C-alpha cells in the first residue's frame, strides 16, 4: 500500500495541472470566439509568423 503515497499525489497533481490549464485558457479569453478560432486555422495569412497581437 506504500505505492499510494506516490499514486495519490500524482493523480491529484495531474488533475490540478488540467485545472490550471483550463483556468489559464479561460483567463486568456480563449472561449470568446470558438467559431472564429475554428475558421482562422484555415487561413494561410499568418503561416510564416504569428499575428502581431
Amino acid at each position, binding site marked *: 500500500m506504500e505505492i499510494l503515497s506516490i499514486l495519490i499525489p500524482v*493523480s491529484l497533481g495531474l488533475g*490540478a495541472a488540467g485545472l490550471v490549464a483550463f483556468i489559464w485558457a479561460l483567463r486568456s479569453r480563449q472561449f470568446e*470566439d470558438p467559431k472564429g478560432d475554428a475558421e482562422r486555422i*484555415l*487561413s494561410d495569412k499568418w503561416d510564416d509568423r504569428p499575428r502581431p497581437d
Partner: protein
Amino acid sequence: MADLTASGFSACPACDAAPLAQRLADRAEVADGTLILSLPTAHCVTCITDVETALLAHPGVRHARVNLTLRRVTVDAPGLAADDLIPVLAGVGYEAHELDPDALSATTADRQGRDLLMRIGVSGFAMMNIMILSVAVWSGAEAATRDLFHWISGAIALPTVFFAGQPFFRSAWAAIRVGRLGMDVPISLALILASAISVYETTQSGHHAYFDAAAMLCFFLLIGRYLDHRTRAIARSAAAELTALEVPRATLLLHGAEQVVPVATLRPGDLIRIRPGARVPADGEITEGRSEIDRALLTGETLPVPAAPGQMLSAGEVNLTGPLTLRVTAAGRDSSLARLTALVEAAEAARGRYTSLAERASRAYSPSVHLMALCSFAGWMWATGDLRLAVNIAAAVLIVTCPCALGLAVPAVATAASGRLFRRGLLIKDGTALERLAEVDTVVFDKTGTLTLGRPVLVSAAPLSQDLRPVARALAEASSHPLSRALVEALADQPNARLSDVAEHPGFGVSARWQGRTVRLGRADWLGVSDADEDRPTSATWLAVEGQPPVRLEFTDELRPGAADCVAMLRKARMRVVLISGDRRAAVADLAARLGIDDYHAGVDPQGKEAMVADLAAQGARVLMVGDGLNDTAALARAHASISPASALDAARVASDMVLTGSGLAPVAEAVATARRATRRIRENFAISIAYNIVAVPLAVAGMVTPLIAALAMSLSSITVTLNALRLRD
C-alpha cells in the same frame, strides 16, 4: 429552476430598450477609440481576413479583430468614427452597422459566463479526482485506507462545494428571504447536508461518505445553469444589436443653421428638418415643403399620403419625396409614439406573467422533497432511535431526489431548440417564448411589412406602349418615391429616353420635356384625371404625355418570400389564420384571397388590433401575433406569443418574443413545429426524471442507497435527459 427561466428578461422589454436607444443618441459621434461594428454577412475565414486586412490598411486603425461567433468586428482606431469605416468595409463587399460599445460589450453577461465556466471546471476536476478515490472505496477499501481516502476526498470536496455551490447558495438565500422555496433551496440543503454528514462519518470512520455526490451535484447543475445562461446571453446580445441599429437623432433648425440633436431634447415649438427617406422624429405641423408620407408602420396603409404645409405628422411616419420643415407640437412623453409605448406596457401587464413548465415542476417539487426527507428522518428516528442513521438516510433522500435531471432537462432542450431555430433564421428573445409558442392555435398576421414586403411592384407593363417605356423609366429615375423605384426596376431592360427640364414636384410627381412635349408621371389628381382608388386593391401612378390620354400604371405590394408557404403550412397544421390590417378593404381582401385566408379585417387601428387579439384570447384561443409596425406593437405585446421581422420598427421588435432574422416568413410555421417538439422533449425529460425518482426514492427512504447507487443514478439520469434534448438538433 424557477429563476433559471424567469429572470434575465424584464417584464417590460420596452422599458429596457428606451434607455438603450437613449444612450446611443447621447453618445458623441466620435467614440474615444474602440468601435464595434456588426457584420451580418460574415461567415467564413475569408471574411475574417478580408475585413481585418481592409481595416488595418485604413490609416488610423491600430487594431482590428473579428469575432465570428458574434459576427462583430472590434476596431481600435482613435479619432475615427464608424462612418469612416463602414464605407471601407462596403468597399470590400461587407455590410456593416455601427453598434454601441457601451450597450453591447455585455461585460456583465460575459463575466457571469466565465465565472460559471470556472466553477464548472473546478467542480469537474474535483468530481473526477474524488471519483477515482471513491472507486477504491466502493471496491472494498477497508479501515485506515478508507478513512484516508475519505479524508482526501473531503479535502477536495469541501472547498469545491464552497466555491462551486455559491450560485445555488446565493439564489436559495434570496428565495428564503422572500419566503419562497425555489429549486435552489433543496439543492443547497442537499449540498450542505451531504458535506456535513460525510465529514461527521469520516471522523467516526464510517462506511459511507457522500463527497463524490456533492461534487457531482455541483458539476451537473452548473452545466444546466451555464447552458441556460449562454442561450439567454446570445439572444440578449442579438436583441440588443437589433435595437442598437436605430439611433434616434433629429436635425434641429436653429437660427437657420442645422444641428443634429438627440430626439429627447426636442421641445414643442422647435423647427426640425426632415430629409426624404428619414423617419419623422416627433409629432408636428408642416411649415414648409411638400412631400409624400409613408404611414405603413403606423397604420398599415400601403399608399403614400400627400403632405403639404399645415398638415399634422406623427412620429414614426417616413418622409418620401421632398424635404420638409416641421414645427414640433409634441415630443417625447407626449408624442403619439410614446402613447403607443404606453399601450404596449398596458398590454404586457394584461398578458401577465406566464408560468413556465419548469416553474410549475419546481413548485410541486421543492415542498415534496423536503417533506419526504423530513418524513424519512422522523420515521427512522422513531423506528430505531439512531440519530446518526436517521440523518444519513435523510441526506441520502435529498441527494437522490436532487434535481440534476430537472435542472438539465429544460436548459438542454431550450439550447438545442433555440440553436436550431437561430440557424433557420428565428431569434428567441424570451425564456418562455418556446413554450408559449407551442401552445398556439391561432395565428394573426399583419399585412403591410409582414405578409408583404411593403414594397410595391409593377403589376404589368402592358398599358405602356413600347415607345413610352423609355420615357416612363427616365421620368421614374428622377424620383425616390417607392412607386417610381418600382417602375425603374420593372423597366430595367429599357433604354433611357432623352429628357430635358426634369423637375420633381414633391407630393405630386415628376415632369419633363420629351421631344418638345411635356411628359408627367405622378398622382391622378395632379394630372387632372379621376381615379377611383378606393375600390381597387392596387396602388397606381399615371403617365401623361401631352396630347395623349394618360396611362394608368398599377402596382401591387410584393409578397414576402415564403408567405404563401407559411400560411399553407399553418393551415395544414389546422391552425386558424387571421389577417388584421389597417389598410384599405380592397387591398386586404385581395391579399387574403391570394393567400387563401377567409378571416380578414381591414381598416383596424392599433387599439382595435389589440382589442381583437384580446377578444380571441377571451374566447380561449392562444394567439400568435406576427406583425412589424407600430400599429401592431400593442397587439404583439398582448398576444400569447409574438414574432416580428427584422425589418420591423424597434418598438415592434422589442414588444415581440421572437425576431425573424432573414427576409423569409417560412421559419414561422417551422418554429411552431419545433416549439411543439421542444415542449414534448421537456415533458419527456420530466417523465424520465420522475421515473428515476420513483425507483430511487423508495430505496433511499428504505435506507438502501449507498453512495455508489446515488452516483450511478445521478449520472445516468443526467446523461439520459441531455441525450434526449440533443435529439432536437439536426
